């Protein structure tokens, strides 16, 4: 167990290093940060001077080594554009993104799993087919369009919900949360729904197909043959086995929710990291981009680790060590 976690952590470190390298090296080539940093009237000499001061004229590997060294300490330097610590900037934006993503993930899971189970159990029911059909729209419409249509409907036409931002937030230490105010919840609703729609559809379809598969297994048949009640069979036996593969996908999905929040945050002006990132891309703010990528990778790695540990909880076959089972 410890060895397993350790190995995963080592692997994660390797992954992180590669990601750092990619992030850093790729963004070497996007845009010219110097341009974003000075106004239009600066002279070429001033630009060149700034360039050398930023170390942008140093050899690549030296820049990268410096980058990694700092990144390990959570230090990504100052934003080229804002002149503030990237770590602080991300820290400020992190709560917003996490709250949004979490809300979306919870929504996707709490709606997706029951819907998936329902559509699997009522395979030929009209309501189940309706759910399936509607869910297809979820994956056939681009997220940004859904978001904008939702704003149009709920904010402009109906005026029920606010159209942008996080609303009132409450600071809990460095964490600012919108979950403690009514206004915050109102603001959360539309973006979270927009963000979760795609993942909800995926999870629902995944649960459905896994469930259908599991319902065909011998142990379900045997459970029926023992005369267990349907509820026990469906929710005790089938669902639990369905969850094993669902956990992996859902884990990955949670990660992509965070990444997909780029779009949602752009549409809803949600002050999270995604918005920060896309603004950084637009102005070639390398430190922010690099930091964001590393953070996303870290989130993924952590999620993957958590998923693996969750497996241990769900699937007893993994709990004992390999030696005693031959397969």
């Amino acid at each position, binding site marked *: 167990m410890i060895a397993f976690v350790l190995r995963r952590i080592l*692997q994660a470190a*390797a*992954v992180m290093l*590669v*990601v750092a390298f*990619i992030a850093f090296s*790729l*963004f070497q*080539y*996007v*845009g010219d940060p110097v341009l974003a940093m000075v106004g239009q009237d600066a002279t070429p000499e001033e630009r060149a001077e700034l360039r050398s001061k930023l170390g942008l004229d140093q050899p690549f590997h030296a820049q990268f080594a410096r980058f990694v060294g700092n990144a390990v300490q959570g230090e990504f330097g100052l934003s080229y554009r804002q002149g503030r610590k990237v770590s602080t900037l991300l820290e400020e934006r992190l709560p917003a993104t996490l709250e949004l993503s979490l809300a979306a993930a919870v929504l996707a899971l709490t709606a997706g799993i029951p819907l998936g189970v329902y559509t699997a159990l009522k395979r030929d029911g009209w309501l189940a087919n309706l759910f399936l059909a509607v869910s*297809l*729209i979820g*994956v*056939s*419409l*681009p*997220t*940004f*369009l859904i978001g*904008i249509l939702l704003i*149009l409907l709920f904010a*402009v036409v109906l005026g029920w919900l606010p159209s942008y931002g996080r609303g009132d937030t409450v600071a809990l230490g460095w964490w600012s949360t919108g979950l403690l105010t009514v206004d915050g919840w109102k603001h959360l609703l539309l973006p979270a729904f927009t963000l979760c729609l795609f993942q909800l559809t995926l999870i629902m379809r995944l649960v459905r*197909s896994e469930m*259908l*598969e599991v319902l*065909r297994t011998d142990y379900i048949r045997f459970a029926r043959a023992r005369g267990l009640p349907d509820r026990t069979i469906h929710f005790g036996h089938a669902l639990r086995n369905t969850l094993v593969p669902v956990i992996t996908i859902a884990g*990955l999905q949670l*990660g*992509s929710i965070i*990444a*997909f929040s*780029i*779009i949602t945050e*752009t549409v809803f002006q949600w002050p999270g990291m995604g918005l920060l990132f*896309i603004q950084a*891309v*637009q102005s070639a703010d390398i430190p922010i981009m690099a930091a964001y*990528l590393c953070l*996303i*990778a870290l989130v*993924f*790695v952590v999620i993957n680790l958590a998923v693996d540990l969750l497996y241990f909880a769900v699937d007893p076959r993994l709990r004992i060590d390999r030696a005693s089972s031959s397969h």
Partner: protein
Amino acid sequence: MSALARLRDSDLWFSFRTSPVAIAAALVTAILVFGAVFAPWVAPHQPFELASLDLNDSLLPPAWSAEGRIAYPLGTDDQGRDVLSTILYGSRISLAVGVASVLLALVLGVSLGLLSGYVGGRLDAFIMRVADVQLSFPAILIALLIDGAARAMLPRDAHSDTLSLMVLVGSIGLANWVQYARTVRGSTMVEKNREYVQAARVIGVSPLRIMATHVLPNALGPVLVIGTINVATAIITEATLSFLGVGVPPTSPSLGTMINTGNNFLYSGEWWLVVFPGLALVLLCMSVNLLGDWLRDALNPKLR
């Protein structure tokens, strides 16, 4: 039995014939694909021909409204392009991007997956680690990355439209190979231990040949399903990239670019700019998705 007769006799054809949803989806897909492929002959105007555009015809509503003109059945956009023609040409580009990027991902993923699954060992470990790293980034992010890098690094004198299309295809394709690789690797690992593969080895068939003739065809089923569904995803990814500002050039708009442009006119009353391309996109993606769903179910013996 001829191949055709065999097809007509097959379960696949039967399950297709008896599924109204599949038929409807296939029909819609066929119409859209036909319109896209034969756009130059079908479309009433040539929206990509700049010289034919007249700014003074811009933003006309669809033909049935008061100011509409019969020459522009679905109205015109802000540059005076006929919306219907642009949708036809645009789905051409969307489909091209979708299909090409899926093909790229497929070729890359399938060959890496085959290699990884068949050779195993260190190579397998390496490829799968790369896949892990890649999986750490969602497709959109990767596409953003590759697109940005490619645009900045590639020489600029190539014709920019085709180049940016290629970059787009490349970035969406590269972002998606992992799925295929994993699937193929999985089936390869199963397949390579199948007895008929071993029989072939005993006979003395070379590994490459075995991979190509024995392993690959049997691994292709799920790949096909993923591929179909990914075409829809790729089209949406392209649209989203356009939304984020790194999509296809506006002079030859794809459905995504059109929607993105149309977005800006959502509040100003020119609804047709977003509704029609949006409808086309949803129809296209939905029917492709439905086809993929159907194919998945039809190919899954367990669900029969």
